[in-house]
């Protein structure tokens, strides 16, 4: 998508990651700002299903033609799904970072961590 967008229903981490909280699970991805800074994503390799991600720690890498960037977990948990479609279509991370460009789904190990994340307005303000 060409224009900056930060959906209201997501929670945000200062390292430009988002989380969509669904009960005791969360879907994770990178924000519009992150993909715009990186440029066209040409490679994503996710973590293994069953592995653990830890809040504030990198769990995957996204690469553009020019650069590689760590993806930081906004919340902790066990990986229960990885977006396999990105292997063949990593450009979805640019085209649709909040829907088809999702990265992983996790089962939250500490749901209280969600309270520490920013809402859309706070995150957008942090980019000013």
């Amino acid at each position, binding site marked *: 998508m060409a224009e900056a967008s930060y959906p209201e229903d997501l929670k945000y981490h200062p390292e430009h990651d988002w989380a969509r909280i669904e009960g005791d699970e969360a879907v994770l991805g990178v924000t519009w700002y992150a993909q715009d800074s990186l*440029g*066209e994503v*040409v*490679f994503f390799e996710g973590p293994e299903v069953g592995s653990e991600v830890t809040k504030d720690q990198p769990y995957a890498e996204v690469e*553009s*033609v*020019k650069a*590689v960037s760590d993806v930081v977990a906004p919340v902790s948990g066990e990986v229960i799904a990885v977006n396999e479609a990105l*292997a063949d279509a990593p450009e979805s991370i640019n085209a649709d970072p909040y829907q088809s460009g999702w990265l992983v789904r996790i089962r939250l190990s500490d749901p209280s961590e969600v309270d520490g994340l920013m809402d859309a307005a706070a995150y957008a303000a942090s980019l000013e």
Partner: protein
Amino acid sequence: MEAELRRTPLFDTHVEAGGKLVPFAGWEMPVSYDGIKEEHIAVRTHAGIFDVSHMGQIEVEGPGSLRFLQRLVTNDVSKIAVGGAQYSLLLNEDGGVIDDLFVYRLGPDRYLVVTNAGNHETDLIQFGLVAREFDVYVRDVSASYAMLAVQGPNARRTVAAQLHVELPPRMGVKAQRIGNRPALICGTGYTGEDGVELLIDPDIAPAIWSELVDAGVVPCGLGARDTLRLEACFHLHGNDLSADTDPISAGLGWACEEETGFIGAERIAALRAGGTDERLAPFVIEGAGIPRPGNPVVLGDETVGEVTSGTFSPSLDRGIGMAYLRSDLAEPGTALEIDVRGKRRAARVSSKPLYSKER
């Protein structure tokens, strides 16, 4: 404190066009406009335009020009006819590569040398030191030129039609008028495609750029320039060449003619005769992964080389690179692994170029 970044005559044009500007070799340059992949494909299939005004130009003039250049650079300058061009190297006494250059012969005793931005000042010092022994006049003329590279299968015809100029043949140079000012058109490039490089008056550069873009030539940044040159296996000084690497290991023995007596020739002759421990070789990643400069090349438990250039190839849709490898492993077809941040990626040594239309 970092020194202030220099700007080319096209800086405002890049900003207006939405170019992403980054520091490069002391200059603030566009890395891309609409995306590196699109720009790359535009050059491979149509035509792209690059601002390469950060590159330096040194003019050499006088009765001692030929003998001076034979001493200074590695290739046989006597083979360049008036209106011709040649790739060459500037070496130190130990055979290390100070810079790689293009030499254009503008007249019987007049040459223009195009340098890399990051090495231009070092080159000038070397030119000046060596010039003391010869009857030549060396001038830094970088400020007199903006430099635009127009590259791709439709580049020549678009330039000829839009600017009403006669073009030199490939590897030639022709003096023409562009925008009613003196200009040089060079039949050279750094993309593996046909095309020209225009050396024009800085004042008219924005107008010429816009005219070509309005005619459908796609603005391209340094990002696409890098992916294009790596697919073509052209060296980048600072990555694949340095004062610590020699031309024989780098696969540039063809650009060295020792009998001309250039600085470093003895060392190059010895390396050519005795062989080198390492050789620069292009490779392709066989599956997932993108190699980057500095990645170790491994075979079993042994480190056998290091990646000096690595990127994602938009034409091949996979990771590609060049690496200095133990010489016995530098043959096309050799299977290796690249250690990309702790993950081993299968790779195979390839022949040059990595991408070519003729294949």
